[in-house]
């Protein structure tokens, strides 16, 4: 495992700022050392690339506005193999177009970050209004089997912090990492504290130290993750989205499929407990546990206060890393709580995960809608009263 380094001072705007989530996400990427973005405008994510386009020429790097999301999502893969640290951003319709390259990045083990500022869908839906309907698309949206890592900030500060974490996870696991924001978090303005560069840990790219004659680009180490090189370094690598062997050569048979795709899945699944991250509130005596993430978790917190004032023993579990999901913790809680209430801006996505993990030990209810506005604390309170029955 490479030694962690600290951020370069070039891109870090140390100090206290008043930023919206989109701007904070951009600053997080710059702090993490991102130096190449290919983007395509789409509401409500555009402010991230606008800020990057304005900031990167004085930091050192490239911003390119592409002709569509297919182009932007593959240009960053090309740039990553050229040695750059890359991300792109989008929302609903663009996220659908990027699914092909989410799969290509997973298959070629290309470290990159893909930001989806979620709006109401399906299709063009509600471009300027929030939604959380892409959570399962983040997990399953590209064809075939793979595992992703997806993070879910609920404040501009977390947009900054989790963007850095997203880059570090992408480098550590050599995989695309998703930052699943929502329109409300993206456009909400709050205080964001950016630490000094020496306080920001950076996971460097896992470049090999082997000479070309001994190097195989897709031979995994003991941790299931291969070392990388970049084009132009004399290794003459071949990279393909076809099923490939350790050399990177196409291998059209079930044995190599099992070996490669099995590894792509297990390098995340075997580390799921390490990657999963969540926050708990008032859990010690909770009978009813709310599960909520992103902007919805902020409303849920208010609803929890109202419920507690009525004497209802309500707790809140907020996944910070959405995928991998905090499976073990939900299973534990299911053994002792009365019910779960999943509050999300969709008609049931994370709900099914909680229901599966509760496995009949605790009742699981959904309070969902298709987006357009955040939940009202009072409607959550009413659902909590019913869940406590």
């Amino acid at each position, binding site marked *: 495992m490479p030694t962690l380094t600290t951020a370069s001072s*070039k891109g870090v705007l140390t100090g206290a700022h008043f930023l919206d989530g989109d701007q904070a996400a951009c600053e997080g990427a710059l702090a993490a050392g991102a*130096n*190449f973005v*290919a983007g395509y405008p789409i509401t409500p994510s555009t402010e991230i690339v606008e800020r990057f386009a304005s900031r*990167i*020429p*004085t*930091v*050192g*790097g*490239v911003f*390119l506005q*592409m*002709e*569509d999301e*297919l*182009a*932007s999502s*593959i*240009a*960053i*893969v*090309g*740039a*990553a*193999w*050229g*040695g*750059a640290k*890359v991300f792109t951003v989008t929302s609903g319709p663009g996220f659908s177009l990027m699914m*092909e*390259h989410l799969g*290509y990045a997973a298959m070629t083990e290309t470290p990159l970050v893909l930001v989806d500022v979620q709006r109401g869908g399906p299709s063009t839906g509600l471009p300027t209004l929030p939604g959380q309907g892409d959570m399962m698309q983040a997990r399953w949206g590209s064809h075939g089997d793979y595992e992703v890592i997806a993070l879910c900030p609920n404040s501009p500060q977390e947009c900054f912090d989790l963007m850095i974490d997203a880059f570090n996870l992408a480098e550590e696991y050599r995989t695309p990492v998703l930052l699943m924001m929502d329109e409300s978090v993206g456009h909400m303005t709050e205080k964001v504290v950016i630490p000094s560069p020496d306080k920001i840990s950076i996971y460097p790219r896992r470049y090999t130290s082997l000479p070309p004659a001994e190097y195989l680009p897709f031979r995994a180490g003991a941790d299931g993750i291969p070392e990388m090189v*970049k*084009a*132009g*370094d*004399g*290794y*003459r*690598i*071949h*990279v*393909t*989205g*076809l099923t490939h062997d350790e050399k990177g*050569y*196409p291998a059209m048979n079930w044995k190599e499929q099992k070996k490669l795709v099995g590894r792509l899945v297990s390098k995340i699944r075997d580390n799921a407990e390490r990657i999963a991250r969540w926050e708990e509130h008032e859990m010690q005596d909770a009978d009813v546990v709310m599960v909520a993430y992103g902007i919805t978790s902020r409303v849920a917190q208010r609803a929890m206060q109202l419920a507690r004032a009525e004497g209802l023993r309500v707790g809140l579990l907020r996944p910070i890393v959405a995928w991998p999901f905090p499976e073990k913790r939900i299973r534990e809680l299911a053994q002792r709580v009365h019910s779960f209430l999943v509050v999300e801006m969709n008609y049931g996505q994370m709900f099914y995960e909680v229901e599966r993990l509760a496995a009949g030990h605790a009742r699981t209810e959904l309070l969902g809608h298709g987006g357009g506005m955040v939940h009202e604390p009072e409607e959550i309170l009413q659902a909590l009263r019913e869940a406590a029955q």
Partner: protein
Amino acid sequence: MSTLTQINPVEPFLRTDRMPHIWCPGCGIGTTVNCFARALVESKLPLDKVALVSGIGCTGRVAGYVNLDSFHTTHGRAIPFATGLKLANPALNVVVYSGDGDLISIGGNHFIHAARRNVDITVICVNNFIYGMTGGQVAPTTPLGAVASTSPYGCYEHAFNLPFLAESSGAVYVARWTAFHVRHIAHSMVEAIKKKGFSFIEILAPCPTLFQRRNKMGDGLDTMRQYKQRSVIKNGAHTREVDIDLQGEIVVGKFVDIERPTLQQSMEQQLRQTLRDQYAGMGGA
């Protein structure tokens, strides 16, 4: 006693451990790869600094056979991948090598935009007039009247004239040859790789299995004979006038060779002019 060994001069450029290749007997793609290897020899470029990017399809498999940093990307997206690779690592000579269906149909939008931006890459398009890998379907390059598996009664859509499309989109170097013109191809490849900006070479190539057979045009050798008879070299011809039909004259040659600032040059000039000493450069690898 001396030992004689035969060394194929293009062998160092190929991943011989991947042979035999997948292409059919009489296919023109291998011929163009041979030309490409010879062009690399002639260009004297350090091979570690040449990267090849392909899309999907029969020609898309070229990336798997060349002994270079090589990327077999997604269908139609070789050009934007190459754009990212080039701008992240400007020291690389980036060559896109793919087929007509990949580059011009599904990838058509990227083709025109990369030419417009004048990205400093070379695009080599092997045009066999159909989709080969999937079994010979009609393509945006299929000549009027030609039979394909999805135009069984003859193609009734007008085809793209690729040199005209490339030039009008902004390419600074445009040439067309057939697989018969091996020396011309290699020479054009050297010029195109050395050219600063978006350079484009169309190479007409036989697909005896799926195009020539269905259109009763004989085998690979017959097609070469036809290329020889039907081709007319017209360097500098107006690209508007180089349309291809099923039977008539095929105009080949170097049509465009002009100077225009590349994307990188324009980007750096604009940012330096506006930001002056605050401009921190491209941060390349």
